[in-house]
C-alpha cells in the first residue's frame, strides 16, 4: 500500500482567495425622510395610514394592510421595552468588557418598534415594559444612519 504522508507542513500548499463584495443600500423615500428628520431636526417620524389609522414605525409610503397612502406624523421616539437580550460576546465571539443589552422597543404612539441598544442601566435592572428614551449623537456628528441614535436609556 502506498501510504506516503506529508510530514513537513511547509510542503503543503494552498490557494488564498478573497470574495469582493460591496454594496450601497438606500433608505428609500420614507426611510430617507425618517433619517433626515432625525439628523437635522432631532425628530422621529412615523407614518399613519389614511384609511385604517395604523401608525407605522419606521415610516412606510403605503399601508401594507390596505395599500392606501400614509401621512407622516411626528412621534417622541420614546417607548417601552418589549423584549431584550444581554450579549456578553462581540461578533467575533470575544468576551466584551461590559455586556451590551439589545432590546426591541415599542415606540409610543405607533404600532411599530425598533431594535436598539440599552445603556445607562445594569442588565439585572432591565424589565419588560420599562420606559426608555433615545440618546442621540451630537448634531455635528450625525450621518443619517441608525447609529445617529447612540442608545436608549431609562426615562
Amino acid at each position, binding site marked *: 500500500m*502506498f501510504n506516503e504522508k*506529508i510530514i513537513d507542513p511547509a*510542503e*503543503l*500548499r494552498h490557494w488564498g482567495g*478573497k470574495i469582493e463584495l460591496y454594496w450601497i*443600500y438606500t*433608505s428609500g*423615500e420614507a426611510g430617507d425622510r425618517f*433619517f433626515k428628520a432625525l439628523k437635522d431636526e432631532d425628530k422621529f417620524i412615523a407614518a399613519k395610514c389614511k384609511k385604517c389609522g395604523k401608525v407605522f414605525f419606521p415610516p412606510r409610503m403605503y399601508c401594507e394592510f390596505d395599500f392606501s397612502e400614509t401621512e407622516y406624523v411626528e412621534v417622541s421616539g420614546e417607548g417601552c421595552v418589549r423584549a431584550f437580550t444581554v450579549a456578553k460576546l462581540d461578533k467575533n465571539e470575544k468576551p466584551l468588557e461590559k455586556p451590551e443589552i439589545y432590546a426591541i422597543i415599542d415606540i409610543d404612539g405607533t404600532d411599530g418598534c425598533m431594535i436598539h441598544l440599552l445603556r445607562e442601566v445594569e442588565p439585572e435592572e432591565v424589565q419588560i415594559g420599562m420606559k426608555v428614551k433615545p440618546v442621540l449623537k451630537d448634531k455635528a456628528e450625525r450621518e443619517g444612519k441608525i447609529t445617529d441614535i447612540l442608545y436608549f436609556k431609562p426615562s
Partner: protein
Amino acid sequence: MSVGKKDISCPPEAPGTPLKDSDIAEKKVTYVEDHPDIRYAWTAGQAISRFLNELKKGKLIATKCNKCRRILFPPRMFCELCYKPIDDWVYVKDTGTVQTFSISYIDPDAKPLEKPVIVAVIAVDGASKNMAFMHVLGEVEPEKVYIGMKVKAVWKPEEEREGSVTDIKYWKPIEG
C-alpha cells in the same frame, strides 16, 4: 386579518424614485454601505501540493496505479477506478498534444484583449489516455492551432518559479 375579497385600491403603477450616482456621492439620500472582508484558503492536498512543488524544479509529476496501470495526471492520491490508494510517483514529459482549444478575445472582466489568448487542454506525453490539463499556447497564431498539434512547455527561469502552474509560461508548437 380577514381572508378573501377586500375593498382594496392601489395605484396602477409605482413609478419609483430614480437615483443618480451623484445623488449618492453628494449624500443627497441616506444609505448604508458595506465592504465585507471575505477571505478563504483552499488546501491543495497531498498530491497537488507535490505537483506544485515539482513545478518549481521544472518537472511534471504524476501518480501511478499498479492495478489499472494508469498514469494519473495531474496526480491524485486515490485511483477512482480501482478505488484504492495509488502506488507510486512518476515523472511525465513536458511535451504533449493539443486535445482541444479555445481562442479568447476577452479577459476575465470581459474587456477586449490586444492579443487573443489560446487556451488549450494538453494531453501530456507519458500520462494515460484521457489525462490532460489546461494551459495556454504561445508562439503560434490562433489560425494555425489544430487538434493533435504537438507542443512543448516553455518554462520560466528557475529563479522566477514559485511552485505554480504559471511556472510554465506557455506551451509552444514543436517544429516539424
